[in-house]
């Protein structure tokens, strides 16, 4: 009772607010439960859906394989499923501080090789699947993983370049970072998908997925560079001086003393950038790749399931939310250390 009085009804203004909020919340909660569960249709039956008042989860029941795996050959769906599980396991494994050792790179290397083998196939009796047919959840996860994997080394170089004493290198790095951060991701994606082929010698083609990946790497590198720069700036001056005093040359100084400290500090903002990156991969839909959001959208174009957009996008939000929320919790756990 005391808790109720203190937190809900401390004064009459606050009390009225609370009462009003409780009424609104309870009402919308009932309406939501009605819509999402009680009146909802779970069977894959479009006609029953149209007759019902509630949500039509039948769309998801019917299309979940397509949404999760895209146009990957139907009988081979276990391969992207296994690859997704493996990739998520790799990320979870890397989240533990105890495993932040040099061999983690090896684990990732073998993990990604295994994922590549599963997805492409062509060995151990698995038929070959070209990457135009990859889609759904695994594409979203792969685009973000490789986005951060390639952008990260690049961003370290950019951040070091931005703090370099050499004016030309500094100007180039600042120019690149500010240019990319000043324009929307969609323009970088257009650049990679439309403009890049014009610059290749005739006969050479890069497929659409690699082009999108390239754009994501370029974009992520600029944002990550600012994160790394923040880490570099947080290192006390004394560390730089001490490294100098040991007479270490620049690269060894950076590699052995500065970077290990700077990167540890940058983990929470790095995870936040990773969240933004995962969300941003949904934009590849605009240049015609079949990522998770894209497969959800395509499921709706079938005439029978036309008009159930709300349910489809609620489902898509939930999938993205699970991944992003887990990462944001993780990033926040560092604050309490």
């Amino acid at each position, binding site marked *: 009772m005391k808790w109720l009085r203190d937190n809900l009804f401390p004064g009459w203004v606050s009390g009225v607010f609370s009462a009003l909020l409780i009424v609104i919340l309870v009402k919308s909660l009932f309406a939501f439960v009605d819509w999402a569960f009680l009146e909802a249709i779970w069977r894959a039956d479009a006609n029953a859906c149209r007759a019902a008042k509630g949500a039509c989860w039948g769309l998801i029941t019917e299309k979940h394989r397509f949404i999760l795996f895209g146009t990957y050959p139907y009988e081979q769906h276990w391969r992207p499923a296994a690859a997704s599980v493996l990739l998520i396991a790799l990320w979870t494994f890397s989240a533990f501080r105890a495993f932040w050792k040099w061999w983690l790179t090896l684990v990732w290397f073998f993990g990604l090789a295994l994922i590549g083998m599963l997805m492409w196939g062509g060995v151990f009796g698995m038929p070959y699947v070209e990457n135009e047919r990859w889609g759904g959840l695994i594409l979203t996860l792969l685009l973000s993983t490789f986005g951060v994997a390639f952008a990260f080394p690049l961003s370290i170089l950019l951040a070091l370049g931005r703090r370099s004493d050499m004016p030309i290198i500094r100007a180039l790095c600042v120019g690149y970072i500010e240019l990319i951060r000043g324009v929307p991701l969609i323009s970088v994606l257009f650049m990679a998908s439309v403009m890049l082929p014009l610059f290749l010698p005739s006969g050479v083609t890069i497929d659409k997925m690699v082009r999108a990946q390239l754009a994501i790497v370029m974009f992520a590198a600029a944002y990550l560079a600012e994160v790394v720069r923040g880490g570099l700036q947080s290192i006390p001056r004394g560390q730089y001086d001490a490294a100098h005093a040991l007479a270490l040359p620049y690269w060894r100084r950076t590699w052995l003393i500065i970077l290990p400290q700077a990167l540890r500090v940058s983990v929470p903002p790095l995870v936040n950038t990773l969240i933004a990156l995962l969300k941003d991969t949904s934009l590849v839909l605009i240049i015609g790749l079949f990522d998770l959001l894209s497969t959800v959208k395509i499921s709706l174009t079938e005439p029978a399931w036309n008009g159930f957009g709300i349910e489809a*996008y609620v489902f898509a939000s939930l999938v993205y939310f699970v991944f992003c929320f887990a990462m944001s919790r993780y990033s926040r756990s560092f604050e309490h250390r």
Partner: protein
Amino acid sequence: MANLEERRIASGFGFLNREAGFEIGESAFLRYGAADSYLRALFVGLTNTLLVAAIGIVLATILGTVIGLCRLSKNFLLRTVSGAYIEFIRNVPLLVQLFFWYAVITEGLPSAREALSPLPGVFLSNRGIFFPSFSSVPELQGFNFAGGFAISPEFAALLMGLATYTAAFIAEIVRAGILAVDRGQNEAAHALGLTRAQATRLVILPQALRVIVPPMTSQYLNLTKNSSLAVAIGYPDLVSIANTTMNQTGQAIEGIAVIMAVYLTISLSISGFMNWYNAHVAFK
């Protein structure tokens, strides 16, 4: 260059003066027809981008500040509800949210003949939102409304998505800004006999603003850049029109150069203005 010649793609900005030949769904300020030039079409796109960004910034700031203050409220429910809102919105891609709002408007709202009318003269339907203007009142004609002031479903969905999404980020900035003000300031204000509202308005907010302004700037920039997602739901913003232009003329390099130049100019002007404002509120 050899590639361009081989594919018979022209280069240079000469195409800007040619006839565009496509219609644009809506134009806020300028009169535009299919016979106008590409330059004019892109200009219409720019005004559409600026319009949605400007209104979006105002709405997101108001909504974000209110939610940020609720997050710090002593009221448990207010605190929890605003916290849940922030967590959910921030962890779902904006594009999903835009599609969601677009689906809510086009599928959730009734057709024009059965439009909801919450206020006399105001109609909500899957064809958009209609308000009475000074000169005329919206009236049902055939399958749609005519007259009055209309907001298209695309504009409404984009604005709704951008404002609610950015508001969640602004709320966190406002909260952090207020928490950054020293506790002693609040106690001192209390000791002077100021009420809670007076203390917030006269003592806390002016100091919090110094912390709030820089991250707020980057949110305004994000909102403006995110308005380019309009292309996915069919609102004719700059990127959407530049995309059509690129498809018609094949001049991708010039088209992307236009997009990048415009966004860089907008980014630099907003950050320039905010730097000036920041210097204005900073410690002297």
